[in-house]
C-alpha cells in the first residue's frame, strides 16, 4: 500500500485529469438562457436539465403541443378550436367526420408558436416536432411568418437540416400561390420518417386538387399504412374508398 | 527464538468520536503490556467496557494502537504475514441468511488465499471439526445461535491458523454446544495452536485456559496462571472479584 499522502495526491491528479479531458466538450443543446417556457413548465425544464433528460421532456412538450392543437379529430362541433373552418359529415353509423381540406386546423391557438419553439429549445434535434410546428403554422393556421420564425430557430441549431429548408421553400411557394410547386417541393420529404402526417395530408390534397389522383392515392395509402393517428388513417381510407368508387363508376 | 504469538508493549488505544465542533475522546486501553506464547490457551476476563474487544481488534488489525506496539508472531497485525496465522471469531458473527454453510466458508476460504482442492478440503475439514456436517444442506437462516457460533468458529479455522482469537465463543450457547466447543478448542490446543479467548464466564475460562488476564478499566490488573488460581481459596472467581472491585 503506498503512503496515504500519495493516495490523496493521486486522487486529486486523476480528478483533474478527468476534468481536463472533459473541458473541450460543449453541449450541443441550446443554452438554458434561451428557454422561454410558459411558467407552468419551468419545473419540468429544471428536471429535464437535472436528469439529463432533454429528449424525454421535449417529447412531453410535443405531446402537450399536439394536445393543444388537437392532434386527434374531434367530433362534429365545428365551433371547437381547430374545427371552425371545415365541413363535417355524419356517416351511416352515426359517427361524425371532419372533411379535411386545405383549411384543416384553422384556429387561433395563440400559444402555438411559443410551445412549438419550446420543444426545440429543449431538444433542437427533434426535427419531427419542428416540422410539425412549422407545417401546422404555415398551412394549418395560415401564419407563415411564425412558421418561418420557428424554422429559423430550428436552423440556428441544426443548420444542415434539409427538411427545414424544404418546408421553408414550400412556404415560399405557398405565399406565391403556387400549389403545384408546393407539392413538388415537399415530395422528397414525404418518405422521411420525420415527415408530419399533416404534411402528407396536405400533399395528397394538393395532388388531388391538381387532378393527379394516382399521386394523391399513393400518399393516402402511405398514410393509411404508416400513421398511428387514427383520424388521419380513417380519412385516408375514406379518400382511398372515394378514389376506388370513382374509378369503378368510370369503368 | 520463536516470537510470541501476541506481544503488547505499552499499548494505548484512544477512540475519537467526531462531534459538530471538535471531538470526544475515550481511552479504552492504557499502558498495556503482555505476551502470549505460542501454543498457550489464554483467557481474557473483565467487566463490560474493560477493553477486551479492543484488545482482540488490535490483534486482528481492525484497530490501530494510539501508542505502543502490537506484534503478532513478530509482525505488525496489519501485515498479511500476521493475518495469515490468525483466525478470528467475533462476538455474534453474521452470515448472509440465504447461503449454505459451505458457500459461506468457501468465500472466506478464498479470502484467506485458498483455492481449488485445498479450499474444498479446508471447508470439509472445518465443517467436520465444528460438527456442521449434518447441517450442510440447511441455509444460514435456519441456523440456531449455537450453529451460527460453530459456523463462526469454522471460518476461523479454515486456513489452519496458529493463533485463534475468540471473542465470547460460548456466549448464549446451550450446555451441549458449550461442551462441544470446549472439546474442539482443547483439541486445537493439543495440536499446538495458541488460543486467546475473552469471556464473561469465569468457569469456562477456568476449564480451558492455562493463564488468564484480568482487565480493569483499560488496564491489565492481573495475570493469573492456572497454578495460582488452583492454589487460591475461592479459585479464579475470588481473584477476579477482588481485582475488579
Amino acid at each position: 500500500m503506498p503512503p496515504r499522502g500519495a493516495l490523496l495526491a493521486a486522487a486529486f491528479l486523476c480528478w483533474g485529469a478527468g476534468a481536463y479531458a472533459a473541458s473541450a466538450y460543449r453541449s450541443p443543446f441550446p443554452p438554458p438562457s434561451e428557454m422561454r417556457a410558459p411558467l407552468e413548465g419551468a419545473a419540468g425544464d429544471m428536471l429535464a436539465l437535472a436528469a439529463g433528460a432533454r429528449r424525454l421532456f421535449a417529447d412531453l412538450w410535443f405531446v402537450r403541443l399536439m394536445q393543444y392543437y388537437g392532434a386527434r379529430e374531434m367530433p362534429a362541433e365545428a365551433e371547437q378550436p381547430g374545427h371552425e373552418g371545415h365541413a363535417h359529415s355524419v356517416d351511416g353509423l352515426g359517427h361524425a367526420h371532419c372533411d379535411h381540406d386545405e383549411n384543416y386546423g384553422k384556429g387561433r391557438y395563440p400559444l402555438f408558436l411559443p410551445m412549438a419553439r419550446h420543444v426545440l429549445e429543449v431538444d433542437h434535434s427533434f426535427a419531427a416536432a419542428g416540422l410539425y410546428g412549422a407545417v401546422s403554422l404555415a398551412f394549418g393556421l395560415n401564419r407563415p411568418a411564425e412558421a418561418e420564425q420557428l424554422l429559423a430557430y430550428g436552423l440556428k441549431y441544426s443548420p444542415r437540416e434539409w427538411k427545414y429548408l424544404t418546408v421553408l421553400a414550400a412556404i415560399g411557394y405557398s405565399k406565391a400561390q403556387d400549389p403545384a410547386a408546393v407539392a413538388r417541393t415537399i415530395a422528397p420529404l414525404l418518405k422521411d420518417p420525420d415527415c408530419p402526417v399533416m404534411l402528407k395530408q396536405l400533399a395528397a390534397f394538393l395532388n388531388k386538387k391538381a387532378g393527379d389522383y394516382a399521386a394523391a392515392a399513393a400518399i393516402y395509402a402511405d398514410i393509411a399504412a404508416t400513421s398511428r393517428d387514427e383520424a388521419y388513417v380513417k380519412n385516408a381510407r375514406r379518400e382511398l374508398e372515394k378514389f376506388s368508387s370513382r374509378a369503378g363508376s368510370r369503368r | 527464538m520463536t516470537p510470541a504469538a501476541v506481544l503488547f508493549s505499552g499499548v494505548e488505544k484512544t477512540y475519537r468520536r467526531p462531534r459538530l465542533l471538535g471531538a470526544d475522546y475515550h481511552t479504552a486501553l492504557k499502558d498495556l503490556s503482555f505476551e502470549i506464547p505460542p501454543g498457550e490457551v489464554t483467557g481474557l476476563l473483565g467487566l463490560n467496557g474493560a477493553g477486551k474487544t479492543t484488545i482482540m481488534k488490535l490483534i486482528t488489525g481492525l484497530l490501530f494502537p494510539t501508542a505502543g506496539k502490537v506484534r503478532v508472531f513478530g509482525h505488525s497485525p496489519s501485515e498479511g504475514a500476521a493475518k495469515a496465522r490468525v483466525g478470528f471469531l467475533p462476538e455474534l458473527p453474521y452470515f448472509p441468511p440465504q447461503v449454505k454453510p459451505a458457500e459461506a466458508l468457501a468465500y472466506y476460504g478464498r479470502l484467506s488465499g485458498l483455492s481449488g482442492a485445498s479450499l474444498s478440503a479446508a471447508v470439509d475439514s472445518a465443517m467436520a471439526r465444528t460438527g456442521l456436517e449434518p447441517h450442510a444442506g440447511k441455509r444460514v437462516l435456519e441456523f440456531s445461535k449455537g450453529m451460527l457460533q460453530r459456523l463462526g468458529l469454522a471460518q476461523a479455522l479454515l486456513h489452519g491458523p496458529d493463533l485463534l482469537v475468540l471473542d465470547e465463543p460460548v456466549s448464549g450457547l446451550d450446555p451441549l454446544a458449550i461442551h462441544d466447543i470446549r472439546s474442539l478448542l482443547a483439541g486445537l490446543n493439543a495440536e499446538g495452536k495458541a488460543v486467546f479467548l475473552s469471556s464473561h464466564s469465569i468457569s469456562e475460562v477456568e476449564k480451558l485456559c492455562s493463564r488468564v488476564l484480568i482487565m480493569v478499566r483499560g488496564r491489565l490488573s492481573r495475570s493469573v496462571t492456572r497454578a495460582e488460581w488452583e492454589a487460591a481459596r475461592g479459585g479464579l472467581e475470588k481473584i477476579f472479584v477482588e481485582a475488579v472491585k
Partner: protein
Amino acid sequence: MRRAAPVVLSVALNSFSESVRNRFFTLFAVFAFTAVYASVLAGVMAVDQEARLLADFGLALIELTALAYALFGASSSLLREAETKTIYLVFSRPVPRWAYLAGKFCGSMLTAALMLAVMALLHLSLLYFRGFGVPEAYGWALFGTFLKLSVIVSFAFFVSLFSTSAVSTLVISAIMWTLGHFASEARFLAEQSAGLKGFLLGALLWLVPNLQLFNVRDAGAALAIGPSALFSAAAWTLSSYLGALWLLSRKEF
C-alpha cells in the same frame, strides 16, 4: 498484486450475488417492468412519435432505476458490512484493503450491468410488441449510462466512508449526479460571465464530473463516446476510488 486478483474476484462475486439476492432487487425489477410497460400510455399520446417517446421514456427509466439501485447498494454496502461485523471476518484475513474496495466496486458495477441488460431486454421487447425496431445508438446509450453509473457509484463509495448514514451518502451522490448533468449548462454560464463570477463558476466546474459527456441517451447519435470521454470516466472513477482507499486505509472497525 497477482495474489490479490482472486480476492478482488471473490469479493466482487460475493457482492454481486448478495445484491441480486436482495429482495430490493426484485422490487426494483418489478418497478422497472411496470414503469417501462406503463410508458405505452404516454407513447400512444405521441401518436406518430410513439417510437421516439417509448425509446426516450424507456432509456430514462432504465437509467434512473439502475442509478437508484446502484446508489442504494453503494451507499449501504460498506456500512452494512461494518454494522453486521462481516467486515471483521474480511479484514482479519490477509485481504488488502485496496483489493476489498476494488471487489466491492466491481460487484456493484456487475449488478448495474445486469440490471441494465435485463431492463434493456424488457424495453426492447416492448418496442418489438409495438412494432418498432431497436432505436438508433441504443447500445451506446446504455454504455453511456454504464459510464455515468461507474463515476457516480465510485463517488458514492468515497462518500460512504465519511458520511454518517446511508441516506446522507445517497443524497450527496444524487446531488452530484444532478450537478453532473448541469455541468455543460454551468460551463456555458461561466463562459458568458466575466470577472470573479466567471472565474468562480469555472473553478467550480473542475469539482463536478460532466456527466453530459456520456449522455448518449439524451443527445442521441450526435454524441459519440470517444477516447477523451472514456478517459474522463476512468479518471473520475479512479479518483473516487483512490479517495475512498485513502479513507479506508486507516479506517478502524
